[in-house]
């Protein structure tokens, strides 16, 4: 099969993703330096908030969306052994999303959209920013459509057969993203754009926040699912064994998709526009969505345990030492899981309703999501890139040992940076400030932690540069020997037999999601149309 289209799509998308990433890494390091207050010459809230807005948009929207699309095209084509459906449409989606990025980048970089990636009105950005973000999302919907079509075409051509796990997960993510992005799309299309264009005088910030909260939680699972996909379909094979349970994997994906959606109000615990009953309901759902992650931890580690034992590991924990730590994919998963334990715990604390007051909008929160997103998730993006690059560019990985150094330094840097960040949060330092101005003794206790964060940021920046360098070197090195990399999927330990249809399809689950969303968001959204609410005009910043 000629899969050059899928490879080109994957490579183009991933280059956009990682270019955004490296740019945003430099901004990140500038931000820790600026925020520490050590360098007077750097002090500028205007530059800082433009930078932090750009950093957030590049990392959370551009890196993720493009990586997921690129990975998805390749996975779909390779695991189903069919070419990408309608490549022209796929390239159109790519173009649309890229246009959106450029369109949003201009106001961001010129300080006309310093409203952060959460764009909370009524501070108002340049309308090009909102339109650009919308184009990016619409471009990603094209990807979703192609994934869903390929999934169902394959099922039609292979009746009764089990959809490969990699494609099952990718399609799960496509559905998840369609549901997820609806909230922010409603906000942008019916509130932000008409308001920024002046077609509408005011908007209700309470409604805007509610709609954004719809998106704000499941979006992190959209980012996370490629990492989990690698956990299940690549890691066991790379470690030298089998996937411990494919059924558990499928259930985990389904519960992730279904329960990450109706729970967004844990972002609104401290908000006045939603009542406590709804917050408690969403809080309960938030605890349910920890389950698939806990199960994933077990399944993946059990797969590793078998691999370690096959390699001669004895006793209760002897298998850990005998794992192939020199394999980038295996090293990544170990480091990823380590960060997941702490990041996941932080998430449980955030989810704990009233306890959220202890850390809400403090430095704890960016500490948490850097650990779980930039740590757990992104380290798997690295692993996937190291795994796929040789296949995509038909050249061997430039240096495996440097790749290992890169992964280790990323983990170390992330640990050095996020640990003080969490502590700062418990000490009450707010997030999203460009400098510490509070004339209070308490702030003295913050200083040493800020210094540590600079160090962590430096290590991370070095690691990111090394990653980028390795990709370039792999692709553009003058290798003459023909090279064919291969992608191998892990076999399940126990053959999958008599898989129930609900673990091989999403029709039922989409209905379940529809009902859950109606229950958890129906009245909370409708209330804004029944209450006497007062709109806000747009404000500068």
């Amino acid at each position, binding site marked *: 099969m000629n899969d050059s289209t899928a490879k080109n799509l994957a490579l183009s998308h991933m280059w956009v993703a990682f270019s955004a990433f490296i740019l945003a890494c430099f901004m990140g390091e500038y931000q820790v330096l600026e925020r520490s207050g050590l360098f007077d010459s750097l002090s500028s*809230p205007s530059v800082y908030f433009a930078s932090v807005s750009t950093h957030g948009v590049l990392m959370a929207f551009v890196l993720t969306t493009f990586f997921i699309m690129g990975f998805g095209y390749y996975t779909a084509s390779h695991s189903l052994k069919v070419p990408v459906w309608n490549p022209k449409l796929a390239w159109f989606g790519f173009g649309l999303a890229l246009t959106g990025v450029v369109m949003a980048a201009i106001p961001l970089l010129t300080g006309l959209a310093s409203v952060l990636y959460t764009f909370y009105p009524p501070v108002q950005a340049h309308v090009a920013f909102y339109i650009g973000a919308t184009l990016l999302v619409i471009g990603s919907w094209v990807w979703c459509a192609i994934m869903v079509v390929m999934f169902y075409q394959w099922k039609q051509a292979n009746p009764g057969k089990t959809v490969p796990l990699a494609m099952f997960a990718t399609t799960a993510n496509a559905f998840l993203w369609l549901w997820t992005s609806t909230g922010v799309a409603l906000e942008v299309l019916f509130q932000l754009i008409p308001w920024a264009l002046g077609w509408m005088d005011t908007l209700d910030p309470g409604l805007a926040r509610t709609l954004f909260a719809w998106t704000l939680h499941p979006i992190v699972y959209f980012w996370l699912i490629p990492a989990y996909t690698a956990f299940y379909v690549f890691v066991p094979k790379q470690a030298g064994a089998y996937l411990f349970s494919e059924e558990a994997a499928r259930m985990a994906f389904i519960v992730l998709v279904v329960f990450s959606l109706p729970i967004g109000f844990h972002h609104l615990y401290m908000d006045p526009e939603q009542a406590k009953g709804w917050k408690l309901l969403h809080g309960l759902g938030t605890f349910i969505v920890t389950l698939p992650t806990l199960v994933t931890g077990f399944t993946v580690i059990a797969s590793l345990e078998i691999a370690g034992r096959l390699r001669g590991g004895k006793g209760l924990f002897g298998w850990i030492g005998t794992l192939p730590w020199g394999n980038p994919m295996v090293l990544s998963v170990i480091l990823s899981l380590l960060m997941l334990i702490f990041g996941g715990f932080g998430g449980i604390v955030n989810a704990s309703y009233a306890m959220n007051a202890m850390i809400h909008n403090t430095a704890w929160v960016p500490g948490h999501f850097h650990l779980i997103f930039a740590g757990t998730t992104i380290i798997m993006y690295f692993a996937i890139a190291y795994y796929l690059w040789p296949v995509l560019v038909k050249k061997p990985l430039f240096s495996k040992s440097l790749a290992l150094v890169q992964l280790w330094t990323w983990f170390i840097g992330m640990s050095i940076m996020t640990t003080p960040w969490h502590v700062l949060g418990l000490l009450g330092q707010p997030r999203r400030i460009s400098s*510490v*101005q*509070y*004339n209070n003794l308490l702030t003295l206790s913050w200083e040493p932690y800020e210094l540590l964060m600079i160090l962590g940021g430096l290590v991370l920046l070095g690691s990111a540069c090394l990653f980028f360098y390795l990709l370039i070197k792999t692709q553009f090195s003058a290798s003459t020997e023909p090279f064919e990399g291969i992608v191998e999927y892990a076999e399940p330990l126990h053959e999958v037999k008599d898989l129930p249809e609900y673990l091989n399809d999403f029709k039922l689950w989409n209905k379940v999601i529809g009902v859950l969303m109606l229950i958890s968001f129906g009245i909370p959204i409708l209330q804004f149309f029944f209450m006497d609410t007062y709109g806000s*005009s747009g*404000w*500068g910043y």
Partner: protein
Amino acid sequence: MKHLFLLTALIIPSFVSAKPASNMVWMPETLNFVENGNVQKGEQLAQSCASCHGEKGISAMGMFPSLAGQTANYTYKQLRDYADGKRDNPMMNSVAQGLSDQDSADLAAWFQSLPAAQNKASTQDVSKAELMVNQGNGKKILPPCFTCHGASGKGKRMDTPALAGQQSEYTVNTLMAYKKGTRHNDIYSRMRVIAKQLSDDEIKQLGELYQQMK
């Protein structure tokens, strides 16, 4: 004991006027109304302002403000506040009472359309003012001036005034009036709280700095 005084001061119900600092409410209709002020009509009306505020809105006397380049919302609010007696100035009170809402909007639009004064830099030391404009003062809880008045002093959306090119004497007088509380049409004492923290020297330098700003 310090606490005691502070506390006493804070929890005694205040006997000063319980009236709002300004009656201005920025409803969208008001914002649109001011935005659509008629520049030509404003120009005609402004002829009677010229003797104090200058032909092109640039005043020749330090006691009168230049109005050229002032944001329309701000001019409009001041005119309504004068009319309501929220801002005191015998002359302006009677002028403003003679202006309708429409007149005020037209005037505001006219002055906004004029280019602000471009003044030459003097040799005076403005280092303290620069610090205030760009950095503020965390110790005194003073945000940098630019965060509300703009990086080049052009004012911002809603009703923060443009300051660039303003007569230094006028800026100084205004800040002193806020400091003393004789000017009080800033809701929730926003500007009074800030002005109270400024030293006379800082105020003087700020006047100079904004006069030169372009």
